[in-house]
């Protein structure tokens, strides 16, 4: 969702050190992970030292603020509870809410607060606290995007344990919206007090200073037994410095440290490499509203031109998976049965000729260096397209210029998304006619109709069928060429067990971690 737009100051030095290190490491069998990270009975005690990415200038303490730093989000997510959370089998699992139920028209949703939920100062969580927190979130500048379709006045309490959310439109996936930032504070917490306000989460704040923090176990957490005594969070500006700290034994976990660091550490037997699949989408966006890619045949041809395996291997160093032009690959409802699109240059050429594509022109593919590999993906795709006689020139833009001039407007550009666990999320944000971030300028009445069916159908089976159809349409016609998904990569010392497995925001789920002896 809000991957920080980090400057690529590091690239030179980082890659230099990595090359040197791997040259000296004499690395053999890189893929083997040394320790079984799940085995054994949990042991109580110990302090886990986590490194997480963040920038000193972007520090945010407000749980309802715009969190640009992974380190801040990590701290907030351990101290405060959201109503629901991302899950493994079910996309949405309970956190502060133990259960939720829709009305028949799928507009009114009733959330029940978990039994025994209490703030760190001992006072129980009431529906009033939740209502106050959700309204506060809704009234922030980014609020309408975080709780779309739910007006502040339509968030109400019913008794002490039930919170009622009324959506403007039917929304079968409403609980999905409450997973990421619905952190609950005590009612009437003053803005000045927010940074120190007690939460309800598995850890209590001991101290916080400039992005770094120490958290202590909450023995009375309603969500179950917490094993660790404490968690220490250190903020890192560069992934390579974080990797160095891990290699030097200064931290136990390097969260979301990336593929370059993974290669660096691959030869170290005492380091666990945790791959969290479906972490980052790096699609190529083709404008559908007008321009050379408005013809669906041209778009399909481009999707046939790309060599997906080569992209994953070269751009992601193999730390990723091939994708099928459908966004939301981490969704349990992702349509795995839609046949994988493969490279077919002959068919691509035929489609381009049918569409009277202008082969004499050179098309600009605009990219940025906001995340590692993005610019490389553009260059590699341009090379692959040349084999189908399509001339593409890669143009690198600085992040600010990109968001100002290219994003949502350009004819052909690369982009990235860090929240990939919901097909509906992408449909609602980026593909439905008139969506706020409709990156390809797409408008397809069949897609819109199916989308409405998906979010307006209560019956599970009928909804699943509609969701499958939605993905089929997206696969065939949308402006997204999604060639692959990058893994989220964490590094950890050999004693850490039960590390987070989920992509995106799931990377902060450290409440069940324990340390082996």
């Amino acid at each position: 969702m809000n991957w920080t737009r980090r400057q690529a100051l590091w690239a030179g030095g980082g890659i230099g050190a990595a090359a040197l290190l791997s040259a000296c490491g004499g690395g053999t069998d890189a893929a083997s992970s040394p320790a079984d990270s799940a085995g054994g009975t949990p042991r109580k005690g110990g302090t886990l030292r986590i490194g997480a990415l963040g920038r000193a200038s972007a520090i945010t303490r407000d749980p309802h603020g715009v969190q640009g730093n992974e380190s801040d989000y990590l701290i907030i997510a351990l101290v405060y509870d959201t109503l629901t959370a991302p899950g493994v089998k079910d996309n949405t699992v309970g956190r502060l809410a133990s259960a939720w139920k829709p009305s028949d028209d799928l507009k009114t949703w009733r959330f029940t607060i978990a039994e025994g939920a209490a703030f760190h100062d001992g006072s129980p969580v009431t529906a009033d606290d939740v209502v106050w927190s959700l309204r506060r979130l809704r009234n922030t500048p980014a609020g309408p995007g975080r709780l779309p379709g739910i007006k502040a006045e339509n968030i109400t309490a019913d008794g002490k344990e039930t919170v009622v959310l009324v959506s403007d439109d039917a929304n079968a996936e409403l609980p999905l919206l409450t997973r990421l930032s619905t952190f609950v504070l005590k009612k009437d917490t003053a803005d000045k007090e927010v940074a120190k306000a007690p939460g309800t989460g598995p850890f209590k704040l001991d101290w916080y200073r400039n992005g770094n923090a120490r958290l202590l176990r909450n023995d009375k957490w309603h969500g179950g037994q917490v094993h660790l005594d404490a968690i220490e969070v250190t903020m890192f500006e560069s992934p390579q410095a974080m990797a160095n700290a891990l290699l030097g034994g200064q931290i136990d976990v390097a969260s979301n440290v990336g593929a370059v660091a993974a290669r660096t550490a691959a030869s170290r037997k005492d380091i666990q490499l945790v791959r969290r699949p479906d972490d980052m989408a790096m699609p190529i966006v083709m404008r559908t509203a007008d321009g050379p890619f408005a013809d669906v045949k041209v778009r399909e041809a481009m999707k046939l031109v790309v060599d997906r395996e080569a992209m994953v291997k070269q751009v992601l160093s193999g730390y990723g998976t091939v994708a099928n032009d459908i966004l939301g690959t981490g969704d349990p409802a992702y349509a795995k049965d839609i046949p994988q699109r493969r490279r077919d240059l002959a068919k691509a050429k035929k489609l381009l000729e049918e569409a009277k594509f202008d082969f004499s022109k050179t098309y600009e593919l605009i990219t940025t260096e906001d995340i590692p590999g993005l610019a490389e993906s553009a260059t590699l795709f341009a090379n692959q397209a040349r084999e189908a006689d399509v001339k593409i020139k890669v143009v690198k833009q600085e992040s600010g210029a990109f968001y100002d001039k290219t994003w949502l407007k350009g004819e052909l550009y690369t982009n990235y998304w860090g929240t990939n666990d919901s097909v509906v999320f992408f449909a609602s944000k980026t593909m439905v006619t008139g969506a706020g971030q409709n990156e390809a300028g797409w408008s397809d009445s069949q897609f819109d109709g199916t989308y409405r069916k998906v979010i307006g159908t209560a019956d599970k089976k009928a909804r699943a069928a509609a969701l499958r159809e939605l993905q089929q349409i997206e696969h065939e016609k949308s402006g997204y060429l999604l060639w692959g998904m990058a893994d989220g990569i964490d590094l950890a010392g050999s004693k850490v067990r039960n590390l987070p497995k989920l992509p995106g925001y799931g990377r902060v789920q450290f409440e069940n971690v324990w340390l082996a002896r």
Partner: protein
Amino acid sequence: MSEAAIEGAEAAAAPAAASALRRSLRAVGRTGVVLAKRALMLAVLLAVVFAAIELLPGDAASATSERGESAADTAARRRLLGLDRPVWERFPDWMTALPTGDLGTSARGEHVTDLLAAPFPNTLLLGATAFAVTLAAALALGCWAALRPGGTADRIVGFASGIALALPEFVVSIGLLLVLSLWTGWLPAVTLTAPDGSPASWTMLVMPVLALTVPQIGWNARIVRGALADQAAAPHVAAARLDGLSPRRVLLRHALPGAWPAIATGAATSTGMLLGGAVVVETLFNYPGLGTVLSGAVADRDTPVIAGVVACTGAVISLVLLCADLVRARTLGARP
């Protein structure tokens, strides 16, 4: 001594005291003028910073927006941050608040003074330590080389300092990291922060300081050596040598005092290089200083934060330059 003589001496002392007072007043006045000039320079610099960020594509509202945010929401935040007003209105507002110590609010709603409260002292500590090490090492090496012009020491120092000054900080940093930390494990690879916001251990300062000083020692050792060579040709130094004084005494008592202005100027310019290099070095070693704040703030187009960093570092550099000017004035003033 007769009474008359005593009276005479007192009478003579009075105008001497008056002239001393006048002299010191003049010195204070001169310093005041220099200070005012430096302050004006800083104001101009800050205006340039505001203008430069204005020229960059995008603004803080869009750079710090969340991906789920609509254009209308971003526009609302732009109004909230006051970015819809022209830069010539925002700059005077920020400048007039500056003397009260108010550096404004960051694009994410934090007070800039809070954001800089811990990093600024940390960078000062890093910079001051690096400055002291640079000066001491450069003086020692420069003098050692100048003792026997053309000798082995001179050639070694000349050669090594040439290489050192050509090395960028990040190359030195990575070399130090590999050798001193990842291979040998002697020093911690990165700086971890104690609860009070300062580095958790002094050993964490060693590599950042070394990374900053190596290029600057190279540069300053050459300046010291060059200034001493110039002085060696001066008549009073030649006279001292012909008087048969030891080379060490000639160097320290007769050549070095005259070389001070050049050395001070060289060292003062190093301040800027040290603070500039800190941006890279702090990132590489995760040192919690201004450099890391600055690089993030530029990406965010966060004008108040950038201007706050520039104001702090600019003030430090101005102060050091002022000291260098005073050293020069004193040395040159002693030899009219």
